[in-house]
């Protein structure tokens, strides 16, 4: 018996999506920029995929740009700042993914001053905290839609609203939303006024790695230059198979309802998450983070759960569970090789609790049996160690 519970790192690949994308791309071999018939056919397939992506995300097709994934989609709006003649500050929430925090450090070397927006003890960024952090010269604000370690859903609509209502004379900063853990998983309204850009990745939804998209409310000056593909926002010959797969993966996970992209088929995941949280409470050896999170807590994504325990370091627990066929991680897979847990630190979790924390993340196909397998392996680890 084994259970894969690390979906936030990467979802199980969807064979149907990958096969269909590969098969189609074999026929659509032309370079989409070529003017001959095979080129046109490829171009049409891309534009039709763009329309699908736009429809499922409830945004306009011309606001969707295909990229190599979440990291690049996060970087493009940040790098665009380098074109500005005057430097200022950028406000980054304390719980952003390393693809944002590390790029902020890079921008710092170019003269931009990073400001950190604090979070509550429960891991939420409030509009008040954003307003208290930004300054007159703040040109860029980044707050993710769903935190990848705790699953906390951030009030991005409220934040967008209050950024629009800055006092007269203050320019609204560019507001970027990392929606990698949100698209297809929670209701998402990217077309709300005030949201300027958002990042989405395919492999969190069963698609392949190396493909994602950037939502841009309006064009920006791209730092990457080349053959002009993706309207010059992201030049480079298009990853056609990836684009087809991304469209299909988004379609599989969400549908538009007015201006909102609403996740579909997540009843199983909601049940599994409730079972998981209740099971952990019953075991008593581990606790959820934040402690106030309940089994069906609407404040959190039903796909991601952070826990901690009093005894075993998270990293050791991950290895011990892996020996038992249960696969989870300590936190962001992207920072698993680094020391420290910045997100949990920002939530003022005690150092021991940070070190002993672990993340369980699920998908729509996670079953009650998977959860029970995890719970019994966890109990076994605690009694054996």
């Amino acid at each position, binding site marked *: 018996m084994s259970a894969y519970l690390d979906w936030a790192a990467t979802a199980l690949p969807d064979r149907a999506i990958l096969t269909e994308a590969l098969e189609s791309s074999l026929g659509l071999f032309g370079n989409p920029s070529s003017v001959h018939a095979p080129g046109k056919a490829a171009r049409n397939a891309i534009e039709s995929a763009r329309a699908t992506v736009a429809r499922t995300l409830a945004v306009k097709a011309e606001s969707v740009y295909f990229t190599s994934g979440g990291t690049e989609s996060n970087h493009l709006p940040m790098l665009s700042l380098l074109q500005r003649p005057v430097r200022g500050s950028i406000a980054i929430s304390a719980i952003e993914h390393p693809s944002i925090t590390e790029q902020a450090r890079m921008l710092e070397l170019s003269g931009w001053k990073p400001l950190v927006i604090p979070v509550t003890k429960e891991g939420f960024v409030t509009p008040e905290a954003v307003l208290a952090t930004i300054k007159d010269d703040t040109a860029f604000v980044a707050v993710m839609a769903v935190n990848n370690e705790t699953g906390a859903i951030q009030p991005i609509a409220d934040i967008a609203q209050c950024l629009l209502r800055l006092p007269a004379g203050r320019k609204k900063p560019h507001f970027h939303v990392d929606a990698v853990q949100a698209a297809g998983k929670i209701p998402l309204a990217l077309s709300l006024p005030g949201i300027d850009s958002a990042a989405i990745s395919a492999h969190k939804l069963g698609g392949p790695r190396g493909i994602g998209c950037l939502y841009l409310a309006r064009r920006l000056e791209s730092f990457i230059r080349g053959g002009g593909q993706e309207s010059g926002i992201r030049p480079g010959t298009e990853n056609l198979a990836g684009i087809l797969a991304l469209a299909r993966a988004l379609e599989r996970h969400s549908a538009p309802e007015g201006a909102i992209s609403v996740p579909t088929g997540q009843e199983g995941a909601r049940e599994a998450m409730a079972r998981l949280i209740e099971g952990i409470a019953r075991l008593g050896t581990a606790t959820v983070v934040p402690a106030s999170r309940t089994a069906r807590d609407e404040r959190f994504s039903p796909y991601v759960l952070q826990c901690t325990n009093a005894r075993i370091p998270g990293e050791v627990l991950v290895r011990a569970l892996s*020996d038992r066929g249960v696969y989870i991680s300590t936190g962001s897979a992207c920072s698993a090789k680094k020391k420290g847990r910045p997100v949990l630190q920002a939530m003022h979790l005690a150092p021991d609790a940070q070190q002993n924390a672990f993340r369980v993340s699920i998908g729509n196909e996670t079953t009650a049996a998977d959860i029970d397998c995890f719970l019994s392996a966890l109990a076994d680890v605690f009694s054996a*160690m």
Partner: protein
Amino acid sequence: MDINSDASAVYLVKVGELTLKAGNLRDFEQRLQQNAQLYLEGKGAKVQIRAGRMYVEGPESSAEAIEYALSHLVGIAGWARAAVVNKETEAMKRAVVAEAIKIRDSGKKTFKIEARRGDKSFPLNSYEISRLMGEAVFDPGILAVDVHRPDALITVEVRERCFVYGPENPGIRGLPCGTGGKGLLLLSGGIDSPVAGFRMLRRGMKIDGLYFHSHPYTSPEAQQKVEDLAKMLARYGVGMHLNVVPFTAVQQHIRDNSPTDYATVLLRMCMMKVANMMCRATGSTSIITGESLGQVASQTIENLTVTNSCAEFPVLRPLIGMDKEEIITVAKEIGTYETSILPYEDCCVLFSPRHPVLRADLAYTTEIYNNLKIDGMLKEAFDAREHKRFGWL
């Protein structure tokens, strides 16, 4: 001296302390020669030792392998690639000028010629050779002469043929690996133990490694780090064996059956016991550790005394009187530092007491150890060891 007629890469090597070993010089020389041959196997290179000097020669394609060997072999004081020319002054001058140009291009300004005439039938004496060769460099203004403190030395040796070479590359020094017996190095993955191993290697000791792994408490990356360090030592040590002993059950048993603050010193005792088994099995006659007095709690003199009481072989601690900075300097020199500081712990925090006992009493600690009744478990761990071997190339 017979020179291979195809040879185009010739190296003159100064051997290290071997020259001090009057009685068994021959054994030491032979070992150095054998070690060099191992490094150059299949490269078509020839190694000879004559009159306290080692000559390595091979086809141009073997030059890289020869230089790798000479910069990793223990027992070499210095080496240089030499141009080999006929014993005619014009040919000798050309070789000297070529060497001088290389020296000038490396940014140096002054030189001196040192001539040696092994072949007494050569018509010029060493003073005359120096003068003639010096003129060839000085007259066209390639370098200036400084016979007292030259930036670079060009050596001209007239033997059966003439060897011309520039500044020497430093060697590792020490005594050839294998002339000092065999020792078992307790390798942890930290900064100290590879340095301790290197220091004993340099005294001619052949080294085996022993690492204790505690999956899942310690990570595969921690073991990989130790393997990488063993590979680095293997390059100097004519290869190296590494044995990995699974120690999880032992650590859990100590944790569950002894006072918390004694966990570390008891673990060290257990490691010594397993090291004894390893020495007996592989013919090592000493145990080497990277301990440095007072560096951590397990390395106070009292705790070292307790650990030592479990060893049935001499425990060599080459770093015992070194401070951390000195150890780090050596680690950087031998290239192990960057690997050693990778953040993969060799011991899980779960087994590290917050306040370990600093001055364990031998009798009392031995009693706790005996009450653990852990010897059977140690034997099991030893029997479950995993063996790895790393080559020198």
